[in-house]
Protein backbone atom coordinates (compact mmCIF):
# COMPACT_ATOMS: atom_id res chain seq x y z
CA UNK A 1 0.00 0.00 0.00
CA UNK A 2 1.24 3.32 -0.87
CA UNK A 3 2.30 5.42 2.03
CA UNK A 4 1.50 9.09 1.89
CA UNK A 5 4.23 11.30 3.20
CA UNK A 6 2.54 14.56 4.14
CA UNK A 7 4.33 17.69 3.09
CA UNK A 8 5.30 19.78 6.09
CA UNK A 9 2.95 22.71 6.40
CA UNK A 10 4.68 26.06 6.17
CA UNK A 11 3.98 28.51 8.93
CA UNK A 12 2.97 32.03 8.13
CA UNK A 13 6.47 33.30 8.87
CA UNK A 14 7.90 30.79 6.44
CA UNK A 15 5.42 31.72 3.76
CA UNK A 16 6.36 35.37 4.07
CA UNK A 17 9.84 34.68 2.62
CA UNK A 18 11.57 37.51 4.38
CA UNK A 19 12.20 36.01 7.87
CA UNK A 20 13.51 32.84 6.29
CA UNK A 21 15.73 34.82 3.96
CA UNK A 22 17.14 36.68 6.93
CA UNK A 23 17.87 33.36 8.63
CA UNK A 24 19.70 32.16 5.53
CA UNK A 25 21.66 35.39 5.32
CA UNK A 26 22.74 34.91 8.91
CA UNK A 27 24.05 31.44 8.15
CA UNK A 28 26.11 32.55 5.17
CA UNK A 29 27.42 35.57 7.02
CA UNK A 30 28.53 33.30 9.85
CA UNK A 31 30.48 31.17 7.42
CA UNK A 32 31.95 34.24 5.77
CA UNK A 33 33.16 35.77 9.03
CA UNK A 34 34.59 32.47 10.16
CA UNK A 35 36.52 32.15 6.91
CA UNK A 36 37.64 35.77 7.01
CA UNK A 37 38.94 35.85 10.57
CA UNK A 38 39.94 32.25 11.17
CA UNK A 39 40.89 30.87 7.78
CA UNK A 40 42.85 28.09 9.43
CA UNK A 41 39.61 26.45 10.55
CA UNK A 42 38.40 25.97 6.99
CA UNK A 43 38.23 22.33 5.97
CA UNK A 44 40.54 23.08 3.07
CA UNK A 45 43.91 21.77 2.14
CA UNK A 46 46.20 23.78 -0.09
CA UNK A 47 47.21 21.09 -2.51
CA UNK A 48 50.01 20.61 -3.52
CA UNK A 49 51.75 22.96 -1.07
CA UNK A 50 50.61 21.07 1.97
CA UNK A 51 51.29 17.35 1.64
CA UNK A 52 48.19 15.22 1.54
CA UNK A 53 48.03 12.14 3.74
CA UNK A 54 47.28 9.06 1.67
CA UNK A 55 46.77 5.83 3.57
CA UNK A 56 48.97 2.83 2.76
CA UNK A 57 46.03 0.76 1.66
CA UNK A 58 45.03 3.30 -0.93
CA UNK A 59 45.28 1.76 -4.40
CA UNK A 60 47.94 3.94 -5.96
CA UNK A 61 50.65 3.31 -8.55
CA UNK A 62 52.00 -0.25 -8.58
CA UNK A 63 55.41 -1.50 -7.53
CA UNK A 64 57.13 -4.83 -7.93
CA UNK A 65 58.63 -6.39 -4.82
CA UNK A 66 62.31 -7.31 -4.79
CA UNK A 67 64.19 -10.33 -3.59
CA UNK A 68 67.09 -9.77 -1.18
CA UNK A 69 69.44 -9.71 -4.16
CA UNK A 70 67.40 -7.08 -6.00
CA UNK A 71 65.86 -9.41 -8.56
CA UNK A 72 62.09 -9.09 -9.09
CA UNK A 73 60.13 -11.38 -6.87
CA UNK A 74 57.66 -11.99 -9.68
CA UNK A 75 57.74 -15.53 -11.12
CA UNK A 76 55.98 -14.56 -14.34
CA UNK A 77 52.98 -16.74 -13.61
CA UNK A 78 50.66 -14.39 -15.51
CA UNK A 79 48.05 -14.52 -12.78
CA UNK A 80 47.88 -10.77 -12.55
CA UNK A 81 47.56 -10.16 -16.24
CA UNK A 82 44.85 -12.82 -16.36
CA UNK A 83 42.97 -11.21 -13.50
CA UNK A 84 43.35 -7.71 -14.83
CA UNK A 85 39.96 -6.53 -16.07
CA UNK A 86 41.57 -3.82 -18.13
CA UNK A 87 44.08 -6.08 -19.81
CA UNK A 88 46.82 -3.60 -19.21
CA UNK A 89 49.62 -5.84 -17.88
CA UNK A 90 52.02 -7.23 -20.44
CA UNK A 91 54.46 -9.84 -19.16
CA UNK A 92 57.17 -11.64 -21.07
CA UNK A 93 58.61 -14.58 -19.20
CA UNK A 94 62.23 -15.61 -19.34
CA UNK A 95 64.37 -18.18 -17.59
CA UNK A 96 65.50 -17.33 -14.12
CA UNK A 97 69.21 -17.42 -13.29
CA UNK A 98 68.47 -18.90 -9.88
CA UNK A 99 67.87 -22.62 -10.41
CA UNK A 100 65.45 -22.81 -7.51
CA UNK A 101 63.11 -20.61 -9.50
CA UNK A 102 61.73 -21.45 -12.88
CA UNK A 103 60.83 -18.15 -14.50
CA UNK A 104 61.28 -14.46 -14.16
CA UNK A 105 59.80 -11.57 -16.13
CA UNK A 106 62.05 -10.09 -18.77
CA UNK A 107 59.40 -7.55 -19.56
CA UNK A 108 56.71 -6.37 -17.20
CA UNK A 109 54.70 -3.46 -18.42
CA UNK A 110 51.64 -1.81 -16.96
CA UNK A 111 49.81 0.78 -19.00
CA UNK A 112 48.71 3.18 -16.28
CA UNK A 113 46.41 5.01 -18.65
CA UNK A 114 44.42 1.83 -19.20
CA UNK A 115 44.62 0.59 -15.62
CA UNK A 116 41.47 1.16 -13.60
CA UNK A 117 43.27 0.78 -10.26
CA UNK A 118 41.00 -2.01 -9.16
CA UNK A 119 43.69 -3.83 -7.23
CA UNK A 120 42.84 -7.24 -8.63
CA UNK A 121 46.42 -7.79 -9.80
CA UNK A 122 47.72 -7.38 -6.27
CA UNK A 123 45.01 -9.73 -5.03
CA UNK A 124 45.80 -12.34 -7.64
CA UNK A 125 49.55 -12.56 -7.18
CA UNK A 126 50.48 -15.82 -5.45
CA UNK A 127 53.87 -14.58 -4.25
CA UNK A 128 53.01 -11.03 -3.13
CA UNK A 129 55.14 -9.66 -5.93
CA UNK A 130 52.94 -6.80 -7.03
CA UNK A 131 51.61 -4.18 -4.67
CA UNK A 132 49.82 -0.90 -5.00
CA UNK A 133 50.96 0.83 -1.82
CA UNK A 134 53.34 3.44 -3.27
CA UNK A 135 50.98 6.32 -2.41
CA UNK A 136 51.88 7.89 -5.76
CA UNK A 137 48.58 9.27 -6.97
CA UNK A 138 49.61 12.25 -9.07
CA UNK A 139 50.56 10.56 -12.31
CA UNK A 140 51.58 12.94 -15.01
CA UNK A 141 53.54 12.60 -18.21
CA UNK A 142 53.69 14.38 -21.52
CA UNK A 143 53.08 11.41 -23.79
CA UNK A 144 51.01 8.26 -23.73
CA UNK A 145 54.12 6.14 -24.06
CA UNK A 146 55.48 7.41 -20.77
CA UNK A 147 52.50 6.03 -18.92
CA UNK A 148 53.60 2.51 -19.84
CA UNK A 149 55.80 1.73 -16.88
CA UNK A 150 58.24 -1.17 -17.08
CA UNK A 151 60.34 -3.31 -14.78
CA UNK A 152 62.84 -0.59 -14.04
CA UNK A 153 60.25 1.95 -13.02
CA UNK A 154 58.18 -0.51 -11.00
CA UNK A 155 61.22 -1.67 -9.04
CA UNK A 156 62.68 1.79 -8.42
CA UNK A 157 61.50 2.10 -4.83
CA UNK A 158 63.54 2.24 -1.65
CA UNK A 159 62.83 0.26 1.53
CA UNK A 160 63.36 3.38 3.63
CA UNK A 161 60.16 4.87 2.19
CA UNK A 162 58.16 2.04 3.72
CA UNK A 163 57.37 1.37 7.36
CA UNK A 164 59.85 -0.66 9.42
CA UNK A 165 57.28 -3.29 10.21
CA UNK A 166 56.65 -3.93 6.51
CA UNK A 167 58.94 -6.98 6.59
CA UNK A 168 58.52 -7.89 2.95
CA UNK A 169 59.71 -4.48 1.81
CA UNK A 170 62.56 -4.36 4.34
CA UNK A 171 64.00 -7.58 2.93
CA UNK A 172 64.87 -5.80 -0.33
CA UNK A 173 68.40 -4.44 -0.80
CA UNK A 174 68.98 -1.50 1.52
CA UNK A 175 66.28 -2.63 3.92
CA UNK A 176 66.61 -3.36 7.63
CA UNK A 177 66.08 -7.10 7.22
CA UNK A 178 68.15 -7.46 4.06
CA UNK A 179 71.22 -9.12 5.63
CA UNK A 180 69.09 -11.62 7.52
CA UNK A 181 67.06 -12.47 4.45
CA UNK A 182 70.19 -12.92 2.35
CA UNK A 183 71.47 -15.45 4.86
CA UNK A 184 68.19 -17.31 4.72
CA UNK A 185 68.30 -17.42 0.95
CA UNK A 186 71.95 -18.36 0.89
CA UNK A 187 72.93 -15.41 -1.20
CA UNK A 188 76.14 -13.63 -0.38
Amino acid at each position, binding site marked *: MARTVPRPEMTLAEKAYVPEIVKGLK*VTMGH*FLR*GLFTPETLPVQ*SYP*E*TPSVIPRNYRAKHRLMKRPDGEPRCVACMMCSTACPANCITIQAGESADDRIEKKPVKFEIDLLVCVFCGLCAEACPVDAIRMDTRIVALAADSREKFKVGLKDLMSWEPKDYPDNDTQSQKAPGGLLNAEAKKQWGIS
Partner: protein
Amino acid sequence: MIDFDLPFLLAIAKFALVFIPLCLIPICIFMERKGASLMQDRYGPNRANIPLLGGIRLFGFVQNLPDGIKLFTKENFIPRGAHTFWYLLAPMIPLAVALLTPSVIPWFGPMVVEGSRGLATVSGQILDADSGVLVLFALSGLSIYGVVLGAWASNSKYALLGGMRASAQMISYEVSMGLSAAGIFLIVGSFSLTQIVEWQAAHTWGIVVQPVGFVLFLTSLFAETGRAPFDMAEGESEIVAGYFVEYSAIRFGLFYMGEYAHIAIAGALLSTLFLGGYQIPFMDTEAVRANLGFVSGAIVAAVGLSCLGIAYMVRRWARIYSRMQTTDAVDRKREYNILNGAFSVIGLGLLAVAAALMVLVHPAKGGLGAADIWPLWVNLGTAAVQVGTLVVKILAICWIFVWVRWTLPRFRYDQVMALGWKIMLNIALVNLLVTAVVAKLVKG
Protein backbone atom coordinates in the same frame (compact mmCIF):
# COMPACT_ATOMS: atom_id res chain seq x y z
CA MET B 1 35.14 81.98 -28.51
CA ILE B 2 34.67 79.45 -25.74
CA ASP B 3 35.12 80.93 -22.35
CA PHE B 4 37.34 78.63 -20.31
CA ASP B 5 36.17 79.82 -16.96
CA LEU B 6 35.95 77.80 -13.79
CA PRO B 7 32.40 76.37 -13.95
CA PHE B 8 33.04 75.22 -17.50
CA LEU B 9 36.29 73.48 -16.55
CA LEU B 10 34.57 71.80 -13.61
CA ALA B 11 31.77 70.62 -15.87
CA ILE B 12 34.38 69.03 -18.12
CA ALA B 13 36.28 67.53 -15.20
CA LYS B 14 33.09 65.89 -13.97
CA PHE B 15 33.23 63.51 -16.90
CA ALA B 16 35.92 61.59 -15.06
CA LEU B 17 33.17 60.42 -12.70
CA VAL B 18 31.73 58.30 -15.50
CA PHE B 19 34.56 55.86 -14.96
CA ILE B 20 33.80 55.18 -11.32
CA PRO B 21 31.51 52.19 -11.99
CA LEU B 22 34.14 50.80 -14.36
CA CYS B 23 36.78 51.07 -11.64
CA LEU B 24 34.42 49.32 -9.26
CA ILE B 25 34.15 46.27 -11.55
CA PRO B 26 37.39 44.58 -10.41
CA ILE B 27 36.51 45.28 -6.78
CA CYS B 28 33.06 43.80 -7.28
CA ILE B 29 34.51 40.72 -8.96
CA PHE B 30 37.00 40.34 -6.13
CA MET B 31 34.24 40.67 -3.54
CA GLU B 32 32.10 38.19 -5.41
CA ARG B 33 34.76 35.54 -5.71
CA LYS B 34 36.12 35.93 -2.22
CA GLY B 35 32.67 36.21 -0.69
CA ALA B 36 31.47 33.16 -2.55
CA SER B 37 34.46 31.10 -1.53
CA LEU B 38 34.41 32.06 2.13
CA MET B 39 30.68 31.45 2.39
CA GLN B 40 31.28 28.02 0.94
CA ASP B 41 34.11 27.37 3.41
CA ARG B 42 36.97 27.50 0.94
CA TYR B 43 39.87 29.88 0.26
CA GLY B 44 38.90 31.09 -3.17
CA PRO B 45 41.32 32.37 -5.78
CA ASN B 46 44.80 32.63 -4.29
CA ARG B 47 47.26 31.31 -6.85
CA ALA B 48 47.81 34.23 -9.19
CA ASN B 49 50.71 36.39 -8.07
CA ILE B 50 53.04 39.05 -9.42
CA PRO B 51 56.54 37.56 -9.45
CA LEU B 52 58.20 40.95 -10.02
CA LEU B 53 56.66 42.33 -6.83
CA GLY B 54 57.78 39.53 -4.56
CA GLY B 55 54.98 37.19 -5.53
CA ILE B 56 52.22 39.17 -3.85
CA ARG B 57 48.74 37.83 -4.32
CA LEU B 58 46.88 40.51 -2.35
CA PHE B 59 44.41 37.98 -0.96
CA GLY B 60 43.44 36.92 -4.47
CA PHE B 61 42.86 40.38 -5.89
CA VAL B 62 45.66 39.78 -8.40
CA GLN B 63 43.53 37.04 -9.91
CA ASN B 64 41.71 39.74 -11.91
CA LEU B 65 44.87 40.31 -13.92
CA PRO B 66 45.37 36.85 -15.43
CA ASP B 67 41.60 36.59 -15.89
CA GLY B 68 41.65 39.77 -17.92
CA ILE B 69 44.69 38.69 -19.92
CA LYS B 70 43.05 35.35 -20.61
CA LEU B 71 39.81 36.94 -21.75
CA PHE B 72 41.65 39.35 -24.02
CA THR B 73 43.86 36.75 -25.67
CA LYS B 74 41.44 33.90 -26.17
CA GLU B 75 39.98 33.13 -29.55
CA ASN B 76 36.99 35.24 -30.49
CA PHE B 77 34.65 32.61 -31.72
CA ILE B 78 31.67 33.39 -33.90
CA PRO B 79 29.32 30.43 -34.29
CA ARG B 80 28.16 29.42 -37.75
CA GLY B 81 24.72 30.80 -38.49
CA ALA B 82 25.05 33.71 -36.11
CA HIS B 83 24.02 37.15 -37.30
CA THR B 84 27.50 38.54 -37.22
CA PHE B 85 26.64 42.22 -36.89
CA TRP B 86 24.18 41.82 -34.02
CA TYR B 87 26.30 39.15 -32.48
CA LEU B 88 29.23 41.53 -32.30
CA LEU B 89 27.11 44.47 -31.23
CA ALA B 90 25.27 42.80 -28.36
CA PRO B 91 28.05 42.56 -25.75
CA MET B 92 28.83 46.24 -26.16
CA ILE B 93 25.37 47.36 -25.05
CA PRO B 94 25.52 46.49 -21.33
CA LEU B 95 28.90 48.14 -20.92
CA ALA B 96 27.91 51.18 -22.96
CA VAL B 97 24.88 51.58 -20.71
CA ALA B 98 27.10 51.20 -17.70
CA LEU B 99 29.21 54.05 -19.02
CA LEU B 100 26.22 56.27 -19.71
CA THR B 101 24.21 55.88 -16.51
CA PRO B 102 26.71 57.48 -14.09
CA SER B 103 26.12 60.73 -15.93
CA VAL B 104 22.80 61.26 -14.17
CA ILE B 105 23.87 60.09 -10.71
CA PRO B 106 24.63 62.98 -8.36
CA TRP B 107 28.13 62.27 -7.10
CA PHE B 108 28.51 65.29 -4.84
CA GLY B 109 26.46 68.17 -3.57
CA PRO B 110 26.04 71.22 -5.78
CA MET B 111 28.81 73.74 -5.25
CA VAL B 112 28.78 77.46 -5.81
CA VAL B 113 31.90 78.78 -7.47
CA GLU B 114 32.88 82.08 -8.90
CA GLY B 115 33.24 82.16 -12.65
CA SER B 116 34.12 84.96 -14.98
CA ARG B 117 30.40 85.73 -15.30
CA GLY B 118 29.63 85.84 -11.62
CA LEU B 119 28.60 83.03 -9.30
CA ALA B 120 27.64 79.74 -10.85
CA THR B 121 26.29 76.52 -9.37
CA VAL B 122 28.05 73.34 -10.43
CA SER B 123 25.85 70.32 -9.94
CA GLY B 124 27.08 66.93 -8.84
CA GLN B 125 25.45 65.34 -11.84
CA ILE B 126 27.12 65.40 -15.21
CA LEU B 127 23.73 65.71 -16.82
CA ASP B 128 21.65 67.79 -14.45
CA ALA B 129 18.24 67.11 -15.88
CA ASP B 130 14.98 67.27 -13.96
CA SER B 131 14.10 63.95 -15.53
CA GLY B 132 17.33 62.41 -14.29
CA VAL B 133 15.80 59.39 -12.70
CA LEU B 134 13.70 58.64 -15.78
CA VAL B 135 16.84 58.71 -17.90
CA LEU B 136 18.40 56.32 -15.42
CA PHE B 137 15.47 53.90 -15.54
CA ALA B 138 15.39 54.08 -19.32
CA LEU B 139 19.10 53.42 -19.65
CA SER B 140 19.20 50.55 -17.22
CA GLY B 141 16.20 49.05 -18.99
CA LEU B 142 18.20 49.28 -22.21
CA SER B 143 20.87 46.90 -21.03
CA ILE B 144 18.41 44.02 -21.43
CA TYR B 145 18.72 44.62 -25.16
CA GLY B 146 22.28 43.38 -24.99
CA VAL B 147 21.07 40.17 -23.41
CA VAL B 148 18.19 39.58 -25.81
CA LEU B 149 20.14 40.62 -28.88
CA GLY B 150 23.09 38.46 -27.98
CA ALA B 151 20.82 35.54 -27.27
CA TRP B 152 18.93 35.94 -30.51
CA ALA B 153 21.93 36.57 -32.72
CA SER B 154 24.00 33.66 -31.55
CA ASN B 155 21.69 31.14 -33.22
CA SER B 156 21.49 28.79 -30.30
CA LYS B 157 18.30 27.57 -28.70
CA TYR B 158 19.76 27.60 -25.23
CA ALA B 159 20.88 31.18 -25.60
CA LEU B 160 17.50 32.08 -27.01
CA LEU B 161 15.68 30.49 -24.09
CA GLY B 162 17.90 32.39 -21.68
CA GLY B 163 17.28 35.64 -23.52
CA MET B 164 13.52 35.10 -23.57
CA ARG B 165 13.42 34.36 -19.89
CA ALA B 166 15.58 37.36 -19.11
CA SER B 167 13.45 39.73 -21.15
CA ALA B 168 10.16 38.51 -19.68
CA GLN B 169 11.55 38.83 -16.18
CA MET B 170 13.10 42.20 -16.80
CA ILE B 171 9.87 43.63 -18.19
CA SER B 172 7.88 42.30 -15.24
CA TYR B 173 10.17 43.73 -12.62
CA GLU B 174 10.62 47.06 -14.35
CA VAL B 175 7.00 47.72 -13.39
CA SER B 176 7.34 47.11 -9.68
CA MET B 177 10.73 48.86 -9.70
CA GLY B 178 9.21 52.06 -11.06
CA LEU B 179 6.22 51.83 -8.74
CA SER B 180 8.28 51.18 -5.62
CA ALA B 181 10.49 54.16 -6.36
CA ALA B 182 7.45 56.34 -7.09
CA GLY B 183 6.74 56.68 -3.37
CA ILE B 184 9.95 58.58 -2.80
CA PHE B 185 9.24 60.86 -5.78
CA LEU B 186 5.85 61.63 -4.29
CA ILE B 187 7.33 62.53 -0.94
CA VAL B 188 10.15 64.63 -2.35
CA GLY B 189 8.00 66.04 -5.09
CA SER B 190 10.71 65.93 -7.71
CA PHE B 191 12.29 63.64 -10.26
CA SER B 192 15.66 65.33 -9.93
CA LEU B 193 18.12 63.05 -8.18
CA THR B 194 20.06 65.95 -6.67
CA GLN B 195 16.89 67.26 -5.09
CA ILE B 196 16.02 63.82 -3.78
CA VAL B 197 19.39 63.61 -2.07
CA GLU B 198 19.11 67.13 -0.70
CA TRP B 199 15.65 66.33 0.64
CA GLN B 200 17.08 63.30 2.42
CA ALA B 201 19.84 65.45 3.90
CA ALA B 202 17.29 67.97 5.15
CA HIS B 203 14.80 65.42 6.50
CA THR B 204 15.69 61.78 6.82
CA TRP B 205 16.83 58.92 4.66
CA GLY B 206 14.42 57.46 2.17
CA ILE B 207 14.63 54.06 3.78
CA VAL B 208 12.98 55.49 6.89
CA VAL B 209 10.02 57.01 5.12
CA GLN B 210 9.70 54.22 2.56
CA PRO B 211 10.85 50.95 4.16
CA VAL B 212 8.51 48.82 2.04
CA GLY B 213 9.54 50.70 -1.05
CA PHE B 214 13.16 50.05 -0.20
CA VAL B 215 12.72 46.28 0.10
CA LEU B 216 10.68 46.14 -3.10
CA PHE B 217 13.18 48.30 -4.94
CA LEU B 218 16.09 46.18 -3.77
CA THR B 219 14.32 43.01 -4.86
CA SER B 220 13.49 44.54 -8.23
CA LEU B 221 17.12 45.54 -8.61
CA PHE B 222 18.16 41.92 -8.08
CA ALA B 223 15.81 40.99 -10.88
CA GLU B 224 16.83 43.94 -13.01
CA THR B 225 20.52 43.10 -12.82
CA GLY B 226 19.74 39.45 -13.42
CA ARG B 227 21.40 38.30 -10.24
CA ALA B 228 20.53 35.35 -8.10
CA PRO B 229 17.89 34.51 -6.95
CA PHE B 230 16.51 35.97 -10.18
CA ASP B 231 19.19 34.88 -12.63
CA MET B 232 16.68 33.48 -15.05
CA ALA B 233 18.89 34.42 -17.97
CA GLU B 234 21.34 31.82 -16.80
CA GLY B 235 20.66 28.35 -15.52
CA GLU B 236 23.46 25.84 -15.68
CA SER B 237 21.17 22.89 -15.20
CA GLU B 238 18.56 23.60 -17.81
CA ILE B 239 19.93 25.98 -20.44
CA VAL B 240 23.70 25.49 -20.16
CA ALA B 241 24.94 29.00 -19.46
CA GLY B 242 22.05 31.06 -20.76
CA TYR B 243 22.23 33.98 -23.12
CA PHE B 244 26.02 34.13 -23.41
CA VAL B 245 26.56 30.44 -24.07
CA GLU B 246 27.92 31.08 -27.58
CA TYR B 247 30.22 33.90 -26.53
CA SER B 248 33.86 33.48 -25.78
CA ALA B 249 36.89 35.56 -24.91
CA ILE B 250 36.45 39.27 -24.34
CA ARG B 251 32.94 39.33 -25.77
CA PHE B 252 31.92 37.08 -22.92
CA GLY B 253 34.04 39.27 -20.70
CA LEU B 254 32.05 42.32 -21.76
CA PHE B 255 28.82 40.66 -20.64
CA TYR B 256 30.53 39.70 -17.43
CA MET B 257 31.86 43.19 -16.78
CA GLY B 258 28.54 44.67 -17.83
CA GLU B 259 26.84 42.63 -15.14
CA TYR B 260 29.12 44.00 -12.44
CA ALA B 261 28.95 47.53 -13.76
CA HIS B 262 25.18 47.17 -13.67
CA ILE B 263 25.40 46.14 -10.04
CA ALA B 264 27.52 49.18 -9.26
CA ILE B 265 24.98 51.43 -10.97
CA ALA B 266 22.15 49.71 -9.14
CA GLY B 267 24.00 50.38 -5.91
CA ALA B 268 24.40 54.04 -6.83
CA LEU B 269 20.71 54.30 -7.66
CA LEU B 270 19.61 52.55 -4.50
CA SER B 271 21.80 54.66 -2.25
CA THR B 272 20.75 57.84 -4.04
CA LEU B 273 17.05 57.10 -3.65
CA PHE B 274 16.95 55.48 -0.23
CA LEU B 275 20.26 55.80 1.57
CA GLY B 276 21.04 59.46 1.37
CA GLY B 277 23.20 59.31 -1.75
CA TYR B 278 26.45 61.18 -1.34
CA GLN B 279 25.56 62.46 2.13
CA ILE B 280 27.53 61.35 5.12
CA PRO B 281 24.97 60.25 7.73
CA PHE B 282 23.75 63.17 9.88
CA MET B 283 25.86 65.73 8.01
CA ASP B 284 24.58 67.78 5.16
CA THR B 285 26.84 69.35 2.58
CA GLU B 286 27.20 72.62 4.46
CA ALA B 287 28.23 70.84 7.66
CA VAL B 288 30.85 68.84 5.77
CA ARG B 289 32.24 72.04 4.25
CA ALA B 290 32.40 73.80 7.58
CA ASN B 291 34.20 70.88 9.24
CA LEU B 292 36.12 69.67 6.21
CA GLY B 293 39.36 69.11 8.13
CA PHE B 294 37.72 67.00 10.81
CA VAL B 295 35.53 65.00 8.43
CA SER B 296 38.25 64.19 5.95
CA GLY B 297 40.62 63.46 8.83
CA ALA B 298 38.14 61.01 10.33
CA ILE B 299 37.68 59.24 7.01
CA VAL B 300 41.41 59.00 6.35
CA ALA B 301 41.91 57.73 9.90
CA ALA B 302 39.26 55.06 9.38
CA VAL B 303 41.02 53.89 6.21
CA GLY B 304 44.37 53.92 8.00
CA LEU B 305 42.99 51.88 10.89
CA SER B 306 41.58 49.30 8.49
CA CYS B 307 45.02 49.08 6.85
CA LEU B 308 46.52 48.39 10.25
CA GLY B 309 43.81 45.78 10.83
CA ILE B 310 44.69 44.09 7.56
CA ALA B 311 48.36 44.14 8.55
CA TYR B 312 47.45 42.49 11.85
CA MET B 313 45.45 39.79 10.04
CA VAL B 314 48.40 39.20 7.70
CA ARG B 315 50.79 38.79 10.65
CA ARG B 316 48.38 36.43 12.36
CA TRP B 317 47.90 34.34 9.24
CA ALA B 318 51.66 34.29 8.62
CA ARG B 319 52.18 32.86 12.12
CA ILE B 320 49.61 30.14 11.52
CA TYR B 321 50.93 29.42 8.06
CA SER B 322 54.50 29.05 9.25
CA ARG B 323 53.36 26.23 11.52
CA MET B 324 51.91 24.28 8.61
CA GLN B 325 54.30 22.14 6.66
CA THR B 326 54.19 23.58 3.20
CA THR B 327 56.47 23.51 0.22
CA ASP B 328 55.96 27.20 -0.52
CA ALA B 329 56.88 28.46 2.94
CA VAL B 330 59.68 30.73 1.68
CA ASP B 331 57.53 32.44 -0.95
CA ARG B 332 54.66 32.92 1.44
CA LYS B 333 56.89 34.30 4.16
CA ARG B 334 58.30 36.84 1.74
CA GLU B 335 54.83 37.77 0.55
CA TYR B 336 53.46 38.16 4.05
CA ASN B 337 56.44 40.30 5.03
CA ILE B 338 55.85 42.58 2.07
CA LEU B 339 52.11 42.83 2.74
CA ASN B 340 52.60 43.38 6.44
CA GLY B 341 55.20 46.09 5.85
CA ALA B 342 53.20 47.81 3.13
CA PHE B 343 49.92 47.84 5.04
CA SER B 344 51.57 48.93 8.28
CA VAL B 345 53.40 51.79 6.59
CA ILE B 346 50.32 52.89 4.66
CA GLY B 347 48.16 52.64 7.76
CA LEU B 348 50.52 54.67 9.93
CA GLY B 349 51.04 57.18 7.13
CA LEU B 350 47.31 57.63 6.74
CA LEU B 351 46.91 58.13 10.48
CA ALA B 352 49.56 60.85 10.34
CA VAL B 353 47.81 62.47 7.39
CA ALA B 354 44.53 62.27 9.28
CA ALA B 355 46.02 64.00 12.31
CA ALA B 356 47.51 66.69 10.08
CA LEU B 357 44.17 67.22 8.35
CA MET B 358 42.32 67.54 11.63
CA VAL B 359 44.80 69.99 13.06
CA LEU B 360 45.64 72.10 10.03
CA VAL B 361 42.49 72.36 7.94
CA HIS B 362 39.94 74.88 9.16
CA PRO B 363 37.99 76.18 6.23
CA ALA B 364 36.36 79.58 6.48
CA LYS B 365 34.00 81.28 4.13
CA GLY B 366 35.87 83.79 2.02
CA GLY B 367 34.47 87.00 0.73
CA LEU B 368 35.14 86.05 -2.87
CA GLY B 369 33.93 88.84 -5.05
CA ALA B 370 30.29 89.57 -4.47
CA ALA B 371 29.12 86.99 -1.93
CA ASP B 372 30.25 84.90 0.99
CA ILE B 373 31.06 81.55 -0.57
CA TRP B 374 33.39 78.70 0.16
CA PRO B 375 36.79 78.80 -1.53
CA LEU B 376 37.35 76.36 -4.36
CA TRP B 377 39.57 73.95 -2.43
CA VAL B 378 36.90 73.49 0.22
CA ASN B 379 34.35 72.73 -2.47
CA LEU B 380 36.64 70.25 -4.17
CA GLY B 381 37.60 68.60 -0.90
CA THR B 382 33.96 68.21 0.03
CA ALA B 383 33.22 66.79 -3.39
CA ALA B 384 35.99 64.22 -2.92
CA VAL B 385 34.66 63.26 0.51
CA GLN B 386 31.15 62.89 -0.89
CA VAL B 387 32.22 60.85 -3.90
CA GLY B 388 34.07 58.60 -1.48
CA THR B 389 30.96 58.29 0.69
CA LEU B 390 28.84 57.30 -2.27
CA VAL B 391 31.44 54.77 -3.39
CA VAL B 392 31.46 53.22 0.07
CA LYS B 393 27.68 52.99 0.00
CA ILE B 394 27.80 51.46 -3.48
CA LEU B 395 30.31 48.87 -2.33
CA ALA B 396 28.19 48.03 0.69
CA ILE B 397 25.20 47.44 -1.58
CA CYS B 398 27.34 45.40 -3.98
CA TRP B 399 28.25 43.31 -0.98
CA ILE B 400 24.55 42.76 -0.25
CA PHE B 401 24.13 41.59 -3.84
CA VAL B 402 26.96 39.10 -3.39
CA TRP B 403 25.66 38.03 -0.02
CA VAL B 404 22.16 37.38 -1.30
CA ARG B 405 23.44 35.60 -4.37
CA TRP B 406 25.34 33.04 -2.36
CA THR B 407 22.52 32.57 0.13
CA LEU B 408 19.39 32.10 -1.90
CA PRO B 409 18.75 29.38 -4.45
CA ARG B 410 17.39 30.35 -7.82
CA PHE B 411 13.62 30.72 -8.09
CA ARG B 412 11.75 28.59 -10.53
CA TYR B 413 10.61 30.54 -13.57
CA ASP B 414 6.92 30.48 -12.71
CA GLN B 415 7.75 31.50 -9.15
CA VAL B 416 9.63 34.51 -10.48
CA MET B 417 6.65 35.55 -12.56
CA ALA B 418 4.21 34.93 -9.71
CA LEU B 419 6.34 36.91 -7.30
CA GLY B 420 6.70 39.77 -9.73
CA TRP B 421 3.10 40.12 -10.89
CA LYS B 422 1.04 38.72 -8.05
CA ILE B 423 2.96 39.85 -4.99
CA MET B 424 5.47 42.60 -5.61
CA LEU B 425 3.28 44.59 -7.97
CA ASN B 426 0.39 44.56 -5.51
CA ILE B 427 2.51 45.52 -2.55
CA ALA B 428 4.07 48.30 -4.60
CA LEU B 429 0.64 49.61 -5.60
CA VAL B 430 -0.67 49.57 -2.05
CA ASN B 431 2.52 51.21 -0.85
CA LEU B 432 2.17 53.92 -3.46
CA LEU B 433 -1.47 54.50 -2.52
CA VAL B 434 -0.74 54.77 1.18
CA THR B 435 2.21 57.04 0.49
CA ALA B 436 0.09 59.28 -1.71
CA VAL B 437 -2.63 59.62 0.93
CA VAL B 438 -0.17 60.26 3.74
CA ALA B 439 1.84 62.71 1.66
CA LYS B 440 -1.35 64.59 0.80
CA LEU B 441 -2.41 64.70 4.44
CA VAL B 442 0.98 65.81 5.73
CA LYS B 443 1.84 68.31 3.03
CA GLY B 444 -1.72 69.54 2.70
